[in-house]
């Protein structure tokens, strides 16, 4: 078979060489990419030296020639065959393959002076698009939950319970550890300042208010956004890539009901509980550190706490938990459903999901701090 003879030639190998003698250029060896690559600088130099002159090209010594070798020669020859050329028949194929593409070269994009304006514009439009999408999704989820009140049989209990377990129960050890350590740090830091004023007892006020009202919800939000928000986005994103969401749609299952609603419900149940848990761990940490630093009795700490921190603060903390949990779930689902079928989009949407969730939570927290500034604190 003809291909076997071609193949036999392929099994020999020799480096590419150029021999030049009085207007006569003889090429030898393998003019293929892998062989040329090793001595490309030298070959380019020699070819450039051979350029232009009216030379006799002898390629009968060439063993193998691939598209790259052909391209090098073809461009050296100025995109046409030299007048005197000796070329064995088996080398023609390589030239045929590159003859048309050899004239092409990289198109250089022209510099666009309006690019920055376009960039800002598309960023603004993109943000608006996200906002609209988010509101739309909130609407869908609201409609779905109303529907579920009418048809309670369809409430996705299993999905909700699974999500609570994954986002809540499994986060408990790490949340406790974080809360405890932050409590210790905060307590040490404040204790040093309070000691200089001789008002050691105020450590209870600071820790109580700070952790229950602000730090607990904030800490859990950051943790859950990084832990569960990213997981939700990646999961929905991969489901979109593998067309699982389309498969659900063809079975008449609403993705808002079966995928998004359970996550929103689960996070708004699990988050306040996690807040409670983390705040407790934070207070214990603070209490231990206060004992060390200020010799503050545990019993004194626990007795003073309910007197200086009103119950309203606990409700504010828990309310924040519910709100932040919903926010994180909605943001994560929103970005998850926007994933396009490629790896780049999956990674950028997961990043965007976590960053947006944390930013949104902090912004909401600032607004809430303003709104609730007279509730639960003694204003003198």
């Amino acid at each position, binding site marked *: 078979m003809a291909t*076997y003879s071609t193949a036999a030639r392929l099994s020999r190998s020799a480096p590419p060489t150029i021999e030049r003698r009085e207007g006569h250029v003889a090429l030898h060896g393998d003019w293929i990419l892998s062989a040329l690559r090793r001595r490309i600088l030298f070959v380019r130099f020699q070819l450039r030296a051979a350029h232009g002159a009216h030379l006799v090209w002898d390629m009968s010594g060439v063993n193998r020639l691939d598209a790259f070798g052909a391209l090098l020669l073809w461009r050296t020859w100025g995109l046409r065959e030299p007048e005197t050329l000796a070329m064995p028949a088996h080398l023609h194929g390589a030239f045929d393959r590159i003859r048309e*593409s*050899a004239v092409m070269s*990289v198109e250089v994009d022209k510099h666009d002076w309006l690019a920055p304006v376009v960039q800002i514009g598309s960023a603004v439009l993109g943000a608006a698009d996200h906002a609209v999408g988010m509101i739309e999704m909130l609407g869908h989820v609201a409609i779905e939950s109303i529907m579920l009140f009418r048809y309670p049989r369809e409430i996705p209990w299993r999905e909700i319970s699974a999500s609570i377990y994954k986002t809540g129960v499994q986060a408990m050890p790490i949340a406790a550890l974080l809360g405890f350590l932050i409590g210790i740090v905060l307590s040490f830091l404040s204790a040093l300042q309070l000691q200089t004023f001789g008002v050691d007892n105020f450590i209870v006020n600071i820790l109580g208010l700070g952790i229950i009202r602000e730090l607990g919800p904030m800490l859990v939000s950051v943790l859950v956004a990084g832990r569960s928000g990213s997981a939700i986005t990646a999961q929905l994103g991969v489901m979109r890539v593998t067309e699982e969401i389309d498969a659900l749609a063809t079975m008449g299952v609403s993705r808002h009901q079966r995928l998004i609603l359970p996550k929103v419900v689960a996070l708004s149940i699990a988050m306040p509980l996690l807040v409670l848990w983390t705040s407790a761990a934070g207070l214990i940490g603070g209490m231990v550190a206060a004992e060390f630093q200020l010799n503050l009795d545990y019993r004194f700490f626990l007795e003073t706490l309910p007197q200086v921190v009103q119950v309203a603060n606990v409700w504010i903390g828990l309310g924040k938990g519910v709100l932040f949990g919903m926010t994180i779930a909605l943001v994560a689902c929103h970005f998850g459903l926007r994933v396009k079928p490629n790896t780049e989009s999956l990674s950028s949407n997961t990043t965007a999901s976590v960053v947006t969730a944390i930013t949104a939570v902090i912004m909401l927290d600032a607004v809430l701090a303003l709104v609730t500034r007279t509730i639960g604190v003694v204003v003198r």
Partner: protein
Amino acid sequence: MSSVIELRDIHTRFGHVVVHDDINLNVRRGDLLALVGGSGSGKTTLLREIAGLMKPTQGEVRLFDEPIQTGTRVTRRVRKRRFGMLFQGGALFSAFNVFDNIAFPLRELGRLHEDEIYALVMSRLALVELKPHHAKLMPSELSGGMVKRAALARALSLEPELLLLDEPTAGLDPDRSAAFVRLIRSLHDQLGLTVVFVTHDLDTVSALSNRVAVLAEHRILACDTLEEVLCIDHPFIDSFFRPLTARDEAPSGWVIK
């Protein structure tokens, strides 16, 4: 004639599941070898072992007369550049467009000018019969047949001596499938390729291969030309190739039992 691939006493086991039990196979230069067998017979596993993606439990895989796992980092890398693989789903990098996918192996080589890479990529596109404007498309925007072509162009991008194809025609309609087979055949003639492909499509086997290796019962039952393989009396070969033998009532000279 030297062999491109040589499998010596390959045994593969996943836990207690035996996939390959003593497989020996020789692929010579210029072969168009079809690796056929039922589902789950370990065809793709064997192909992955040839490509060095998996290590057999026991036995030796030799590529280009060298054991595949030996040598320094550099020699192994050079050896890997001598073959191209077409994965079943294409495995195009989804974050790159078609052009960058095909240019990727060339850029990895280094030392080539961007201008040369452009010309080479365009010639590969023409080789697999894609249009220049397809170069800017992302893999997700391509049809199934175009994904296969783009992936083939990437596998061919370094002009390898050996091409490994995993189910080259799966998921293509008969028309496209026949065109793809013609394409691989013409590339085989032009580039002097050795091709090993896994398939369970009989049309592809009869149109593309010049040798057939039948993988069943954890062994290579036969490795010969299709005509010779069809002569073998074995229940698996009988049932596997029955559509082929029943349809062509021996006009092409195939021996039918």
